[in-house]
């Protein structure tokens, strides 16, 4: 009869009114500053540079200024200036490092493509969202110092992902050392052979131990599992 639909609708709103007092499913508001919802582990906001040593973040940056992320970044908000000299990285190999590494967070849209294309796991996504600043230009331009954060912080915000990355880096480093040991052993054996046959022409110096396998830009990085 006329009006039964309206009465049915009123019943639904009444059920919700009463439900919102006792049924948690019908009361969805969290009072933000006091109560906070737990962020899911995959949550991503602005990127940050991973540094191996906590005490000297800028010195121990993993980034080798290869500028792949600068080229791939869709809104072009990363600006890198490669340093002239080199410094030893975690595996002891001489690598460049970024003299200037700026990210303009007013342009960055947190799409994490830089993380995906970085072959050195040097840049990861952060979980900060309370970063409002009064000043419109310079405060949003984060330089190397503000971006560098230690690996321990990375393990804290993305635990499983960090564990995977660390395991892979450790495995690479071990493989690198074994290759270096094997190369050193081979060099030693060759040197011994050269000594055994002094007349033989000096064999060409063994090629420098191949640097730890820099995963070619071609090989796809296995996708990170959540």
């Amino acid at each position, binding site marked *: 009869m006329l009006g039964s639909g309206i009465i049915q609708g009123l019943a639904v709103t009444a059920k919700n009114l009463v439900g919102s007092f006792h049924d948690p499913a019908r009361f969805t508001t969290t009072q933000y500053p006091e109560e906070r919802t737990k962020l899911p582990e995959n949550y991503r906001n602005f990127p940050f540079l991973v540094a191996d040593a906590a005490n000297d973040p800028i010195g121990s940056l993993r980034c080798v200024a290869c500028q792949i992320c600068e080229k791939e970044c869709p809104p072009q908000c990363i600006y890198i200036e490669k340093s002239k000299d080199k410094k030893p990285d975690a595996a002891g190999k001489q690598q460049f490092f970024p003299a200037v590494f700026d990210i303009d967070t007013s342009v960055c849209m947190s799409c994490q*493509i830089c993380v995906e294309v970085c072959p050195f796991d040097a840049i990861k996504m952060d979980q900060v969202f309370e970063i409002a600043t009064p000043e419109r230009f310079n405060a949003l331009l984060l330089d190397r110092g503000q971006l560098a954060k230690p690996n321990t912080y990375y393990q804290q915000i993305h635990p499983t992902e960090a564990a995977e990355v660390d395991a892979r880096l450790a495995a690479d480093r071990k493989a690198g050392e074994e290759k270096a040991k094997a190369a050193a052993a081979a060099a030693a054996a060759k040197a011994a052979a050269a000594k055994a046959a002094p007349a033989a022409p000096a064999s060409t110096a063994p090629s420098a131990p191949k640097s730890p396998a820099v995963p070619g830009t*071609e090989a796809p990085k296995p996708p*990170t599992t959540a």
Partner: protein
Amino acid sequence: MIESPSSPLAPLAGAHVRAVHDAFHGDLLEVSMGPHHPSTHGVFRMMVTLDGETVVKLKPVFGYLHRNHEKLGENTTYLGSMPYTDRLDYFCSMTNNWAYALAVEKLAGQAVPDRAEYLRVILAELTRLLNHTCLAGFLLQDAGASGTPLMYAFREREKILDLFESLSGSRMMCNYQRFGGCRVDPTPAWFDAARRVTEEYPRFLDEYEALITGNEILMARTQGVGRLSAALAVSAGITGPMLRACGVDYDLRKAEPYGFYSRFEFRVPLGDHGDTYDRYMIRILEMRESVKILQQALRDIPAGPIFDSKAKIRAFRPKAGEAYGRIEGPKGEIGFYLISDGTGNPYRYRIRPPSFVNLTVLEDMCLGHTIADAVIILGSIDIVLGEVDR
């Protein structure tokens, strides 16, 4: 059987338009609704000419949100455009990603593993659920309910967005699909959460329909309002729920099965009147079908890789050629037309947005109705300006 209409642009002035309208009478009221009007779903403007209350002429004006997305696509790499597709129809970022990935895979002949195909179907159907729920909420908001159905819609939408956030990292800007699969493999905990949401959804839909579908005031406001004939709909390229509300049986998931849709058993609801009430009801029934698809997909998703071994993330250069890929998005058929010249950037990157084409018949539907109806008819088309203006 769809007979071809005579020239579709037969003079629009029907009986409802008073015969004599010349400067002498001068009683026509020119109203500009938008772009700051509270009920135009974004920066959209309608130049409406009123004869008293009835709409006599209605010219949509848009382009306020135009940022030339397609030129951007030509200046960035294939991968670089993927996060921009989230910003097209910002309600359904997963289906936008899938449409773009499908087109590029068709362009490069790239294979996709089974698990990734299942994941894509699950995420697309979840997007369809949240889009149709929000549509019903906005339709009631235009009809004047003080936001109650909209709040229920957003309560349910939050549950689905939590799933997207825990999977892809961001609620609305997921940037999740890649050419040849997906980016992140969900954990078993994620699948349990997804199953819980899918089980609870029919209960929410029943309560939602009890509040809205039988409501006499809504039926009076929407039945017989904004009627669209099947012939005009097909000729005007209308797609999605709006087309099926006119009784035309054309759903890409059935008409041209892409992905793994042929493996799932679901039905396509059709309306008979093609008015605003049918467009609302078709979306409600489609949600129930989406829940069925989700249950089947979540039940038998296989293990295995989610990213094709030969696929490349960076330095992706498809051979020269062109391809047009399209999928059944929640708002209609969203298509991507790509021309590649062998370099890393696409030579031509074109999006066929559903709401942009569906707006073609806005004037035909609003003629003869009052201005209050024009607001509801616009709401029933379900437009999002990010996609209309590109």
